[in-house]
């Protein structure tokens, strides 16, 4: 009995030791890929990977040999995984993809359709689904991964946080993760979007430290509005105002800044602090759906370049009304632009129709993209100004009184 149990224990111990620690990897055996870029190549794909250089990026005391905190490798292959494996002939360590923060598609590749890349990204168990997808506007992905950025040692991190910050506080840019993209792609009544990035400034020394060794960096990565997709193919770009409209409709606006003309001439600046939109659908006599985007927003007054008397509630009401008018007109116009220029329902109107009128949707399902171009969409906004800041009267009025 005693020897039997002892034998069992010995076997169990040898099990832990001899099984060889399946899938065990030490931290310093890994090359952490922070960003991936996918471009077209003549025989398939050109994949670039921005890999962290831990000796530089993480270690404050370690031996600095003057190398940069990241290294961008490039390899080609018929498929993306093949290109990544081929890359191992140049990298000293195993590529580790779980910490990819952004994935950049070159514009040429995005126009051709990103479906095959998405297949790899979702099939691989190592990749998460919460990194951001970007399109390199008018350029190749590798160019975006070849920029040294200020603040963040790792450019991919810089890109990642700039997406978050600009989306949260400016709302003129997109923030699309792989997960969101797949959901939009696979739904019948909507088409996906992606956010765009582009390079700005002198790109001749973008990949060396000299780029950030001046007070005004020579080259910067800039968030560049929203890329419109039809299915998995890029079909065009939206400017700042249409991008904002898209975000309003998709309920993605957190805060953003805007301005209107003040009733007495001059300019009033406001900040949107909270915005919620709902899509209402009504069926007209021809049995066609009509869409109303209902937008409820809260705004704070940030600046007033006029002599408006803000102590009167009527002035605040007037300002609110003007903001509403601006929303109604501008957003409707922007939606019109998307409808006319692209036959791609990036607002998810079809999906909404599907949910609210499933029977009616059946007749639209097959040719929704064409119908989308002609449906009537209007905007009805309701804006409330909550705060006007620390002073009541505008400075111009104050000066007048003295």
């Amino acid at each position, binding site marked *: 009995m005693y020897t039997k149990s002892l034998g069992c224990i010995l076997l169990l111990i040898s099990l832990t030791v001899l099984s060889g620690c399946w899938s*065990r*990897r030490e*931290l310093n055996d890994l090359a952490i890929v922070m960003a991936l870029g996918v471009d077209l190549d003549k025989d398939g794909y050109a994949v670039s990977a921005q890999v962290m250089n*831990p000796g530089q990026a*993480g270690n404050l005391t*370690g031996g600095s040999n003057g190398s940069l905190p990241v290294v961008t490798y490039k390899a080609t292959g018929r498929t993306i995984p093949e290109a990544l494996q081929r890359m191992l002939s140049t990298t000293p360590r195993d590529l580790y993809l779980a*910490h990819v*923060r952004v994935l950049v598609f070159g514009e040429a590749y995005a126009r051709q359709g990103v479906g095959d890349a998405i297949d790899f990204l979702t099939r691989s168990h190592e990749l998460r689904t919460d990194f951001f997808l970007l399109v390199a506007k008018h350029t190749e992905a590798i160019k975006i991964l070849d920029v040294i950025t200020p603040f963040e040692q790792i450019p991919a991190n810089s890109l990642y946080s700039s997406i978050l910050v600009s989306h949260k506080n400016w709302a003129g840019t997109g923030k699309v993760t792989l997960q969101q993209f797949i959901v939009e792609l696979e739904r019948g009544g909507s088409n996906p979007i992606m956010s765009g990035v582009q390079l700005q400034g002198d790109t001749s020394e973008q990949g060396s430290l000299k780029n950030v060794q001046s007070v005004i960096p020579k080259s910067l990565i800039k968030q560049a509005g929203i890329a419109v997709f039809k299915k998995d193919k890029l079909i065009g770009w939206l400017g700042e105002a249409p991008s904002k409209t898209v975000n309003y409709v998709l309920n993605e606006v957190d805060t953003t800044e805007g301005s209107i003309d003040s009733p007495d001439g001059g300019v009033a600046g406001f900040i949107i602090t909270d915005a919620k939109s709902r899509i209402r659908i009504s069926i007209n006599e021809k049995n066609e759906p009509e869409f109303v985007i209902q937008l409820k927003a809260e705004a704070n007054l940030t600046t007033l370049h006029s002599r408006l008397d803000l102590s009167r509630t009527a002035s605040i009401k007037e300002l609110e009304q003007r903001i509403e008018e601006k929303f109604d007109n501008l957003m409707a116009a922007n939606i019109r632009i998307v409808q006319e220029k692209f036959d791609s329902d990036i607002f998810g109107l079809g999906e909404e129709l599907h949910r609210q009128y499933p029977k009616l949707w059946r007749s639209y399902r097959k040719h929704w993209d064409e119908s989308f171009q002609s449906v009537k969409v209007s905007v009805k906004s309701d804006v409330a100004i909550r705060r006007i800041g620390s002073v009541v009267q505008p400075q111009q009025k104050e000066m007048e009184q003295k």
Partner: protein
Amino acid sequence: MTEKQHPEKRQDDLPGTQALFQEEMRRRLGSSTDIIYRFLALGPFSAVIIFIEGMADPQALIEALHRDLSLFSEIDGAEPARGLKLLKERTITLGKVGEVHTLEQIEAEILSGNTVLYIEKAAGALSVGTENLKQRAVEDATSQSVVRGPREGFTESLRENTALVRRRIQNPQLRIEERKLGTATCTAVSVMYMEDRVDMTALEELRRRLNAAKLDSVLESNYIEEMIQDKRYSPFPTVYNTERPDVTASALLEGRIAILVDGTPFVLVVPALLVQFFQSSEDYYQRSDFASLVRMLRYLCFLLALLTPSFYIAITTFHQEMIPTSLLISLIGQREGIPFPAFLEAFIMEVTFEILREAGIRLPKSIGQSVSIVGTLVIGQAAVDAGLVSAAMVIVVAITAIANFALPAFNVGISVRILRFVLMGIAASFGLYGMVIALIILALHLCSLESLGVPYMGSFAPLRRGAQKDTFVRLSQRMKKRYFNRS
């Protein structure tokens, strides 16, 4: 037998004359120099007293005998038995006097520090309680010190210890059973309980185990702990020990049983539940809200001390995707150039710490502390500078060690130390998956344990809602009703 050599028949089997008695005792006890034989002429009788120098102080006895010498003339030689009775009832002013009738009894009485008075022609001898062992004064309980609360700790003297408890529970229901354990050492062991509160089945079980215990020697209470504990191969203690009379008293009031062993200040308390090892007597001497927070902190420390190194090993070698990216960047930077795998790195540091800790106990008190602190700091810092160990690992080991010291019971700290190494090995082989399996096994094991028939996980498994008033939190005295699981 010796009595056959003597013409006069005695009522007991003691030798008939003083000289023969002395001779017999010398034969039995050997000629140790600390055993004192003192001859006394008491009126018509010759008597001898025997005691061990240092353990007994028969001064009062001798004085009493000489003072009442006149008494002995009354004693009629024809009635030797009356002589002893008179002595016992009228002369000897000491509290504890008893008649002994066999040589074995006499031997035991002498060895336990009493003085034996033998009178020729009397039936039997007298054993007088003159036990006067030099002992330590009652001092601070160093192993379980508190900020607020009684300072007293038990001493090595059994009698003193029972008195310390009795002073706290002045209740007629408090019972003490005494027995001698250890065939070689004959150590006095007391079992204390409250007659009206104790769980009788547990008490019966304890008596059974104590009777069944075959012990050669009992030098510390652990000798007994090992004999009465439920599962010998569990890393967890199923017997609680304490150096504090107030903790013992509170356990007795909860219906537990205390086992006091002569020669050690550590008292055993059974049945012991796991929650007990996370309680400190101070929990009841401080505000209940504060005590509750501190108690939750201890549970956290238990988990930290048990899991930190293994968790670190698991996530850095198997689950890198779980580490937040910015933390990963910093961890990778630190691990650059470290030649060992994370497990070995952790193992080296943990063993180093255990060495320092063990050495710290052995070193003289004055330098012990400084050596262990300096040792840890210097070795930790130097190892990081030399690139042998990453700085994060030093933090992991340090937090583990400190959390370990925050556990109020030393013996549960030992369990944690053992299991920590096991878990580190499992984490290095199977990652988080293995750790979870190991923790499930651990939970099953804890639930299977019993302490004297009472489930070890008490109040949690089986769950008792009423008992939660004094487990993770301690509710105030008004809200609390003491819990004891009568199985």
